């Protein structure tokens, strides 16, 4: 029988009402932001998703704790995401900074994870499809299994910049060749 997916366990701060108000005292605020950073990354890692739209975020269970009737406003969410962007753990996808990608591994880390996997399997020199890389049977136990294609391509582009692979995009094939 399949194991039921466990519920995400929120830290105690998530039930602490002032956690949802940006703190005026600088030290407290720094602590607050750092907890939010970790929480956002943990949550997205747990949910295995990468995308977030700020305009819908105030309904998101991460940013809205209905049981204590507290939620983050968009400004706060933007501040937290900008802080994540500073360390390459998030990036806006559109110019209005509404849609974001969250990288619980930075693109560089993703790239290295994938590259290590490929070299360990001795698959350098061969072409792998993007589908194979994230959905294939062989990668089921890998952390990048199920990684969203947009993020995957960005991570591969980083590797490409390092001369470790070449991303091949044609109409009928999306693949990558590792060196």
């Amino acid at each position, binding site marked *: 029988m399949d194991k039921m997916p466990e519920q995400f366990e929120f*830290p*105690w*701060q998530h*039930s*602490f*009402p*002032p*956690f*949802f*108000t940006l*703190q*005026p*005292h600088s*030290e*407290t605020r720094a*602590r*607050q932001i750092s907890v939010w950073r970790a929480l956002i990354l943990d949550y997205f890692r747990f949910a295995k998703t990468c995308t977030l739209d700020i305009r819908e975020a105030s309904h998101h269970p991460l940013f809205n704790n209905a049981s204590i*009737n*507290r*939620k983050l406003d968009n400004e706060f969410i933007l501040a937290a995401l900008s802080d994540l962007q500073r360390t390459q753990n998030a990036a806006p996808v559109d110019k209005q900074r509404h849609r974001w990608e969250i990288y619980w591994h930075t693109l560089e880390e993703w790239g290295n994870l994938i590259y290590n996997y490929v070299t360990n399997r001795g698959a350098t020199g061969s072409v792998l499809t993007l589908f194979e890389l994230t959905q294939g049977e062989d990668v089921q136990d890998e952390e990048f299994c199920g990684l969203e294609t947009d993020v995957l391509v960005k991570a591969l582009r980083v590797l490409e910049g390092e001369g470790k692979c070449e991303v091949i995009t044609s109409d009928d094939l999306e693949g990558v060749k590792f060196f």
Partner: protein
Amino acid sequence: MRRRAGVGAIQKQKLEQEKYKDKGNEIQENQFEQMTKQLEVFRVNLEEFATKHKNEIRKNAQFRKQFQDMCASIGVDPLASGKGFWSVLGIGDFYYELAVQIVEVCLATSYKNGGLIGLGELRTRLIKARGQGKQHQEISQDDLICAARKLKIFGSGFSVVSVGKGQYMVQSVPGELSMDHTAIIERVANSNKAFTSVSMLREELNWEATRAQKALDHLLLEGLVWIDLQDVTEKLYYFPSLFTACINATN
């Protein structure tokens, strides 16, 4: 008219005074000697007692408390010095060790409570940190208060705040708390909530709004409270150190 005293009389008077003085000194010396002897006997006895019961003092929290009380009632502080005969007992060491561990727990938790911690939480965390190996050394709240008070010598960085009803909190950030601040902490600690507000303080402590606001602003500035602006009626000020989920959180 009576004749005034001559030189002879003055000298005689002087001589008498000196005699009195000598006698006085003698008596004083006698008393001092006796006192010293008594103290010496007492010191020996106390030392003997402490040596004899060294293990109990180290292991038995209640015994330790009684020994402390006994010492306190006669004005002896076995923790005052690591040197001298008390060092033989290792009683001072016991408390020094505790004090260091208190500092460790305070520092380790200050990121979330801003440097204010309830004695109960402090004790739980400290016992956990001491590990299984020393579980025979039971630590009581009295021990913690005793050790924490010793930390005062480092200045205002550490203080034990009484919050009433036999409850204590340890403050580990520099900056003195005034009577008003302690009164607020006491109020909240004795309620079943972790927050307060200007109107609650007005009602419970009969303060004027400005007085309450000033005290709360200070606590905010010290990082001891967090402000919550999403309540429908007014600003709420939360103590993480009194918030149950924070106290019980493992990290």
